[in-house]
């Protein structure tokens, strides 16, 4: 009897470790991006320089859902495949470049000398339990080099989830970021025309 008790004490943790964990689904924000085509020699040197994501987004790997007003929760089983900053930067630069018709530098390091510079701050980007996704952002367009004064814009939009679940959230957020990219491209074009 004593031997049985010792064996049970040794094997019980092993049994616990052997229990399975729920699978994690990872989402790529730019998964539906189609490689663009167009001019490679851009008429203007445009760079997406600084991208700041709200800490509640950058500190979580999971996709964030607003469960109640003022309450958010990062999903455990539904996570981003890459850091959210990197994903948004790639997505936005691709969308802005597509809207402009010529490529955009996704990093300030790629193009230290620039004609137009875009700095973006993502303040809110999450799904909600009432079936929508929201995006609030600010962006600043600066022309004329480091000494130039920038013009700041605000962007806020929301859209309904196309389907239930987190894939719907990712698709809706991509849609909102696409809208943001177009808005930035429009501002860049107007700024270039003014200067």
């Amino acid at each position, binding site marked *: 009897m004593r031997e049985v008790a010792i064996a049970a004490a040794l094997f019980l943790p092993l049994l616990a470790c052997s229990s399975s964990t729920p699978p994690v689904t990872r989402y790529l924000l730019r998964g539906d991006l189609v490689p663009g085509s167009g001019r490679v020699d851009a008429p203007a040197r445009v760079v997406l320089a600084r991208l700041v994501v709200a800490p509640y987004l950058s500190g979580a*790997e999971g996709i964030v859902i607003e469960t109640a007003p003022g309450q958010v929760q990062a999903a455990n089983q539904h996570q981003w495949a890459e*850091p959210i900053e990197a994903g948004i930067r790639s997505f936005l630069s691709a969308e802005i470049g597509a809207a402009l018709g010529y490529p955009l530098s996704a990093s300030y390091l790629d193009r230290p000398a620039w004609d137009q510079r875009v700095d973006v701050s993502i303040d809110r980007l999450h799904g909600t*339990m009432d*079936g929508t996704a929201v995006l609030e952002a600010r962006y600043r367009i600066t022309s004329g080099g480091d000494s130039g004064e920038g013009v700041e814009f605000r962007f806020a939009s929301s859209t309904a989830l196309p389907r239930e679940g987190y894939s719907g959230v990712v698709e809706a957020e991509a849609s909102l970021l696409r809208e943001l990219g177009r808005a930035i491209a429009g501002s860049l074009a107007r700024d270039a025309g003014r200067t």
Partner: protein
Amino acid sequence: MSEARADVSRRRRISPIWIVPIVALLLGIWMLIYTLQSQGPEITIVFSTADGIEAGKTKIKLRSVEIGLVESAGLGDDLESVVVTARLDKEATPLLREDTQFWVVRPRIGAAGVSGLDTVLSGAYLQLAPGTGPEGRRDYVGLENPPVTPAGTPGLRITLTSDHGDSLGTGDPILYKGHRIGRVESGEFDLKTQTMTYAAFIEAPFDDLITTSTRFWNASGISFELSANGVEADLASLETLLVGGVAAGQPKGVGAGPPVEDGAVFALYDSYAMVNERPHRYGIEYVVRFSQSVRGLKPGAPVEYRGIPAGQVERVMVSDLLGQGATGQGAPVPVLIRLEPGRLALPDTEAGVEQLRNAVEAGVANGMRASLATGSLITGSLLVALDNHGDPTVVEIGEFAGRPELPTVATGLEGLEIKLASLLDKLNALPLEGTVKEAQQTLAGLDKLLNSRGMQELPTSLDATLRELETTLASFSGDSQLQEQLLPTIAELDRTLASFRRVLDTLDRQPNALVFNRELEADPLPPVGAR
């Protein structure tokens, strides 16, 4: 039978005839007492002469009222004076006071006018001027002339002194802005000080005008001044033109000072121009001795303290220099200067003089020296400048010819000469020869070093080092490869730290999470949106 004897006795009786002399005696005593009680006091007055005085005839008057009679006049014991004995009325006794004055009124003709004409017919009489002092005096010295100012007149008595006999006489007016405020009472020459001293009286309320800053000058006659504007004539009044007089006032730019006491002494200037040349009354005289030429330094030249007028040069003391027996020895030339506290905004009083003296002593102790400075480059006039030259040498105020002496310092060309000589002396004292030799050796060693192989190759080596440094710095620039590699690494590290933080959070919530699976909550399922 008895014989009757008659007892004869002589009865002594006073004869009634004695009543008459007794009554006469009593009457005489009564008359004597009455006479003694009714007559006034007897006084004696001493005059230098009894001209016009007659015993039993000459009267004593006050305000033309007869109050006494001269009883006798005789020579004094010294035979050089006349002693007049007079009897005053009893009612006049209170008039005999300590400062009561007597003089003989007789016809007089003088600069002040004609007086006493009425005595030509009536004869001379003695005038009494009552005083204000205590009563009881019976012996007096008579005045030879009528007093200019009656005793007891309210006002201020002052003394005016002058180096020479001015055309002033007794009774001459003292004018203030043309208005008569007093008069000269007397004047006498002081043999000891060789000066004329005038007693003057300022009547109340004009005595308030006389302060320490008031100056008096001779206003007799007419003064002429020839200037670019032509000839200017100044006349105080017709009276002063005829009989002379004294003017009183303030120097230009000087305000009224504190009031003066009775008996104050003032200098009598020759003119208002001289008053303005020396507007201040009090001053201190110092001697300063210079070893350089004093050509251009004249009496009246300014003495300045850092450009502020502080006094003037009185004279070059050549005679005192010779008196010191310093001829032929290149002795410095003594110059007498006068510093006046009034010029330095100090009170023009004895107290101001003391303040100035203390300030000068303190200044000298702190390095203040006198020097000759050029007043005008065109005329070459000099002035005496007082300034702090930072001389660390402790010097006390000396004495020369009985006057305090201020230390001096050479400035200007001579000062440069002295400094240059001092500099040359120091240069001579330097070990230049040895220094030059050492410098030559050092230069030779430096030349050898510069020509060495290592030094010749130094530029090439330095250039290579700089290139390496440039390359190294370029690797840290913003677009360098190092930067490109470093930034993703930092981002990865940041993500790792974030994951580690989540692990820690999990352990904090569920300590057995390392052994057992986390009790994960099911993710909320977002619904499809309403289109």
